[in-house]
């Protein structure tokens, strides 16, 4: 394992020192417990938005803290959900009196820890609504699993619900909009290589020279299927078909297409992939109104990509376009 780190034990704290050094003018970083909070939080009267999850998915979530998006993030250890005390601290830090939305990716650990945190926050008199993301169509048989995983749509929920909160919508409305994004979003991913957590020091799985994992999550877990690698066009179709069928997306639907890199995929390949996704979307009759191409929800240095399609309506589109001013997503500001 070769990494640009000081030691496996200190990697999250060290990275947070970097975040503080780079963005200390607009973010407040706490180390005990780990939180990343908007410098101007809490905003009186505004619904607070927090999210959190294991580290190793950067820029998610710390990179999305700022006006128009999250009010705080709780970074856990690498690929390990954060703990309730982090979430409680973040919830208190961003509560402007209008309640706080917890955006939670559907993994057992994240769900259980956020559940405990919500109980603690409510016990302290803070209203909390939880928006659970579970957009991964690779997990088909959700009765016999922990349910679908929350993956790419999480970024879109954070942006769009964040804009709704910035626009002054109330707690129920912000949560409802977040849930609407999740309900209208579907994702699936492919890995060309594994990743190595600093603590384990070994790749999370071994792939042959011409194999890929289809239907991966974001924690270096193996996917649902191991298959021979195909061209970008073939892989795009391998992922798009289940996505399109699942919602289902219909001809004429207005969509946002999000091609996400898993961390180690060069941008040139993501654009090659996006070209194929756009082609398939057009063939399916979709109206591609917006897009996002880049490394936004990652698995350390994993090579691979995921596709997220979000069916848009006027309101979601308006909130997507609204100004956002965070380290990793910034426009109109």
């Amino acid at each position, binding site marked *: 394992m070769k990494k640009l780190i000081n030691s496996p034990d200190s990697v999250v704290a060290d990275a947070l020192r970097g975040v503080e050094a780079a963005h200390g003018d607009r973010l407040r970083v706490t180390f005990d*417990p780990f939180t990343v909070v908007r410098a101007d939080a809490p905003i009186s009267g505004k619904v607070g938005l927090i999210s959190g999850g*294991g580290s190793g998915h950067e820029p998610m979530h710390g990179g999305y803290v700022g006006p128009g998006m999250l009010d705080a993030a709780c970074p*856990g*250890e*690498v*690929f*390990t*959900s*954060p*703990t*309730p*005390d982090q979430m409680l601290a973040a919830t208190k830090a961003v509560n402007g009196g209008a309640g706080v939305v917890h955006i939670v990716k559907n*993994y*057992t*650990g994240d769900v*259980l*820890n956020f*559940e*405990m945190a919500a109980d603690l926050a409510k016990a302290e008199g803070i209203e909390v609504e939880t928006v659970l993301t579970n957009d991964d169509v*690779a*997990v088909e*048989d959700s009765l*016999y*699993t*922990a349910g679908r*995983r929350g993956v790419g749509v999480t970024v879109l929920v954070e942006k769009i619900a964040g804009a709704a909160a910035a626009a002054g919508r109330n707690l129920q409305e912000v949560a409802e909009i977040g849930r609407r994004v999740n309900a209208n979003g579907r994702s699936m991913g492919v890995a060309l290589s594994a990743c190595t*957590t600093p*603590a*384990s020091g*070994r790749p*999370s*799985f071994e792939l042959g020279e011409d194999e890929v994992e289809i239907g991966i*999550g974001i*924690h*270096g*877990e*193996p996917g*649902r299927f191991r298959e021979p690698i195909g061209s970008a066009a073939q892989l795009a179709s391998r992922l798009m078909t289940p996505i399109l069928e699942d919602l289902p997306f219909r001809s004429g639907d207005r969509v946002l297409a999000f091609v996400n890199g898993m961390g180690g995929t060069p941008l040139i390949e993501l654009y090659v992939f996006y070209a194929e996704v756009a082609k398939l979307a057009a063939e399916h009759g979709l109206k591609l109104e917006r897009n996002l191409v880049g490394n936004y929800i990652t698995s350390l240095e994993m090579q691979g990509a995921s596709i997220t399609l979000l069916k848009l309506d006027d309101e979601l589109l308006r909130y997507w376009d609204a100004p956002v001013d965070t380290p990793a997503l910034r426009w109109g500001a």
Partner: protein
Amino acid sequence: MAVDRDTTLAWMTSFAASMEEHREELVQLDTAIGDGDHGTNMNRGMQKAVAQLAAAEQADTGAVLKTVAMALISTVGGAAGPLYGTLFLQLGTVLAGLQEVDLPSYAAAWRRALEGVQARGKAQAQDKTMVDALIPAVAALEAATDLEDGIRAAAEAAHQGALATTPLVARKGRASYLGERSAGHQDPGATSTYYLFKSAAETFAH
């Protein structure tokens, strides 16, 4: 030998050492069907737990267990943090205020701990989780007539339960995403639960 504050402290110290010793093994088990952090998570939590136990006088068995619970909840994260946190919180709640714990109380506390873990995680038997080690261990305790024998039997039952997770297809937790590919690997959480009972058995064998 009885379950009391000091034996419970010794048990927790032994479990912390066991998590350090088996960190790598649990990481490997979790790499196969999960995300490779279970050993690191449990070790981080238990080192924090023994540090906190050392930092303040613990009134009784229940206090020890609650301190461990809070340490795990605030340092483990992941699925294991809330689940083991709940386990120790329930144990500690039932045993609160007791200086000496007899077999029936101990078994009852473990029954409550098991129920707490299941209430939180919604796992049933055969879902390939720590519950598959807990269920037979608690049953063994309940069936016992002697505390020491009971704990030894529980450890043996937890071991069998953990081994028996290998052929199962996971239906809860991260491993469930693998579907059929989760079969053929022993569950990391069931394995750490076995080590928890093994530490108890070793503590009470002294």
